[in-house]
C-alpha cells in the first residue's frame, strides 16, 4: 500500500546524465508500465526506486517518505529481474524463503508464507527442485514468488517476460495481471515491448533518451499521442506517417498528401497551407462491408501492393495517391498485387504532427 513519487529525479553515471529531471506519481495500487526503446533509462529509474542505484538529484518518495538515503531492504520493495536472478544453489523453497530468513522470521512463519505463495503460483510440486531443474516459465514464477512472500508495498519488474517464448509470454502476462488484481500492490513494470505495456498497464509512461514523453492510459497514448515518437512507438503494425499540407476553405478543411486529398472532419487549430505530418492508424482503415458505413468522401480506391493473412485478420500494404500505407483489416482479404480495392478511412482518427517540433497538433 504505497504511493511512489519521483520529484525532479536525475541520474548521472560519471559525467553522462541518463535521466533528466523526471517527475512522476504512481498512485497506490496502480499498475504502471515504463516503456521505451532500449537504453532510454527505464531500468535506471527502476533501480533508483529499488535503491540499487544512487539518486544524483531530486527526490524519490514512497508512502510520502523520502527514501533517497534509505537502504534497499528497508524500502519494502521487491524486484523481479529479467534473468530472474534466482540463487542457483538453493531449492525453490530456499529461494523464496531467503528474504524471510534474512528478516529473522520464525521457521513456521517462513513455511506458512512460502507455501502460501507457492500455492498462488502453482509451484507447490517444485519446492524441492533447484532452479536449473525448472522450465523458463517456472523459473519466472519462482522469481515472482520470491517477490510476493515479502508482501512488499511496491513491486518492481524489469522486463520479466522477455526471456520467455511468445506463447508463454502471453500466458504469463495474463497471470501477472490476475496476480495484480488479487494482490492490489503498487506495481512498476519496465518493458520495451509496447504490447505488454498496452495490455498490462493502468497507466503507461513512455520514455525516450531519459525524458518522459507522455503519461496516460493505454487508450489515451494510443488515440491521443503527445508527439510523433509516441505515435510511432505505440501500436503494432506501426502508424502510417506521411508528410502533407493542410488546407482550409471556409468551413471545410482538408489535407493533401501527394496525389491524395483527405477531408478533415473536425475543426482543427491549424493554418491554411500549414505543413504537417499526418498519422493514420492501420486499424482506422476498413475494407469490405464496414466501408459502407463511412460517408462517400471517406472512401477511396487504392492499389494493392501485398496482402498478408494473419488468421482472422489481414495486413494490407497499398498505395493511394503515391503514398504507401498499411491497413489492419478484419477478415481474410484475398487480393493480388495491382488489384484495385475500395477502403474506408476513419478520418475522425486522423492525427497531425508538427514536422519541426514533432509535437501533436490537436
Amino acid at each position, binding site marked *: 500500500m504505497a504511493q511512489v513519487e519521483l520529484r525532479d529525479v536525475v541520474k548521472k553515471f560519471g559525467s553522462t546524465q541518463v535521466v533528466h529531471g523526471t517527475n512522476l506519481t504512481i498512485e497506490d495500487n496502480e499498475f504502471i508500465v515504463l516503456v521505451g526503446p532500449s537504453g532510454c533509462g527505464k531500468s535506471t529509474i527502476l*533501480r533508483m526506486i*529499488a*535503491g*540499487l542505484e544512487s539518486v544524483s538529484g531530486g527526490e524519490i518518495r514512497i508512502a510520502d517518505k523520502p527514501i533517497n538515503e534509505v537502504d*534497499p*531492504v528497508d524500502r519494502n*520493495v*521487491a*524486484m523481479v*529481474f*529479467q*534473468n530472474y*536472478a534466482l*540463487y*542457483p*544453489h538453493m531449492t525453490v523453497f530456499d529461494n523464496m524463503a*531467503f*528474504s524471510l530468513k*534474512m*528478516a529473522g522470521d520464525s521457521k513456521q512463519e517462513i513455511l506458512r508464507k512460502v507455501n502460501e505463495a507457492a500455492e498462488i503460483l502453482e509451484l507447490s510440486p517444485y519446492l524441492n527442485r533447484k532452479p536449473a531443474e525448472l522450465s523458463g516459465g517456472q523459473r519466472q514464477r519462482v522469481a515472482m514468488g*520470491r517477490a510476493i512472500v*515479502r508482501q512488499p508495498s511496491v513491486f518492481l519488474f524489469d522486463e520479466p517476460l522477455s526471456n520467455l517464448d511468445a506463447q508463454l509470454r502471453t500466458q504469463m502476462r495474463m497471470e501477472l495481471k490476475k496476480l495484480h488484481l488479487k494482490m492490489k500492490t503498487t506495481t512498476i513494470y519496465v518493458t520495451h515491448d509496447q504490447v505488454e505495456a498496452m495490455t498490462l498497464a493502468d497507466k503507461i509512461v513512455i520514455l525516450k533518451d531519459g525524458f518522459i514523453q507522455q503519461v496516460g492510459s493505454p487508450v489515451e497514448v494510443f488515440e491521443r499521442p503527445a508527439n510523433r515518437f509516441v505515435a510511432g512507438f505505440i501500436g503494432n503494425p506501426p502508424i502510417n506517417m506521411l508528410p502533407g499540407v493542410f488546407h482550409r476553405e471556409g468551413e471545410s478543411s482538408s489535407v493533401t498528401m501527394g496525389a491524395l486529398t483527405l477531408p478533415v472532419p473536425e475543426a482543427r487549430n491549424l493554418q491554411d497551407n500549414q505543413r504537417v505530418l499526418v498519422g493514420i492508424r492501420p486499424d482506422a482503415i476498413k475494407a469490405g462491408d464496414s466501408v459502407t458505413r463511412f460517408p462517400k468522401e471517406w472512401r477511396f480506391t487504392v492499389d494493392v501492393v501485398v496482402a498478408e493473412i494473419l488468421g482472422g485478420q489481414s495486413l494490407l500494404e497499398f498505395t493511394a495517391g503515391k503514398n504507401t500505407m498499411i491497413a489492419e483489416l478484419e477478415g481474410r482479404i484475398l487480393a493480388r498485387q495491382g488489384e484495385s480495392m475500395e477502403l474506408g478511412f476513419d478520418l475522425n482518427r486522423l492525427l497531425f504532427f508538427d514536422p519541426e517540433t514533432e509535437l501533436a497538433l490537436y
Partner: protein
Amino acid sequence: MPGPVMPDQAIGTSMRNKDRISAFLTLLPSIILIGIFVYGFIGNTFWISLSDWGGAAALAENPVKSYVGFANYLDLFTGFLGGGFRQDLVNAVFYSVMLLAGAIGIGLILAMLLDNKPRGESFFRTVFLYPMSLSFIVTGTIWRWMLAPQGGVNILPTYVGLPPLRFPWLSSTDAILLFNWQNLLPIALYLVSLVLIIWGLWRLKNNPAKALVLLIPGVVVGGSVWLWGDLLPQALFMEEIHGFNTATFGIIMATIWQYSGYTMALYLAGFTGISQDLRDAAMLDGASTAKYYRYIALPMVKPITISAIIILSHISLKMFDLIFAMTGPDNGQTGHPALNMYLTTFRANDFARGAAIAIILFIIAATFIIPYMISSYRQRRSR
C-alpha cells in the same frame, strides 16, 4: 536429453569403427609414452620399494636387488631408524593443514575485499598475485633472509620502539602439540571419532536421521578407545615423541605468502562470475555484505574451494624446494617426506627406502585426488 549413442547409431557401424580406429591411432603415441614414463615408472618405483637396493654396493654396475616384501615400509613406520621419516610425516600433516587454512582463509578475505571494487583494485590484485610468479627457491631465499635471527621479521617491532623479537624462526628445535608415536592407533581413532561427531552435529539441524548415523559410531569409537585403548597394539616398542616443530611455522608463512595470492585470484574469478543481478537480489532480500558471502557467494564458489584444497594439498605434499632453500638439511626438525625421499635416495643411496617414501607420498596424494577426479567426472557426465 538424448544419450551419446544416438548420433553414433545414425552414422552406422562401419563409420563408427573407422572413427574409433583413427582416434586410437592418434592417441597411441601419447598412450605409449604415458604408459612407460608415468605408469611404468610408478610400477618400477613400487618394485624397487619392495627390494633391498641400497647400502655400500648400491651404485655398483649391476647392483644386487633382492625382494624383501614390505620390509622398507615396516621400517619407515615402526623401525628403529625411521624416526626422522615419522617426524617428517607429522610435519607434512601440520604443514598441509596450516597451509590450507592460511592460504584459503587469507586468499578468501583478500578476494572479498577486492570483489567490492575498492580504489586501486587492479593494482592490489597484481601485488597480491605477484608472489605466485616467483619460484620456490626465490621465495625460500627471500624468507630465509626475512626470518634471519637479526633481520627482517625479528626487527619489525623496533620500528615502533619495541625491543626486537628473539625468536629463532628457522633454527628452533622446540616442538608443541607433542604426542607419542606408540599411541598412533588410538590417536587416529580419536581423530576419526572427532570428525564423525563434528560432522554429525553439523548435520543434526537439517537431517537428524543421517546425523545419528554419524554421531553414534563417532561416540562408540571415541568411547571404546577411551575405555579400552590400552589393549590396542602399540606402533613402536619404545616411546617416541613427535609434534609440531616451531621452525616449521616460518616455512608455512612463506608458503602462505606465496599461495594466498593464487587462492585470491581463484576466488576473485569465481566472485566476479556471479552476476550483479544476484547480488542486487540478495541486497533487496535483506542480505548484508557478510551474509551475501555467507549464503550466496561462498556456496556458489564451492567448486573453487574444492579445487583449491586439492591443488594446495598436493602442493604441500610435494613440497621440496622451498624447504630445501629455507632450512633444508640444516634443521632436521623441519624436514618433509619429499625432502627425506631426496636425501635418502640420492645422498644416502638407499634407493629402496627412497622408493618406499615415494610410494607412500603417491598413495597419500591419490587419496586426495582420486575422489576429486571421480566427482568431477560424474558432474561432467551428468551435464
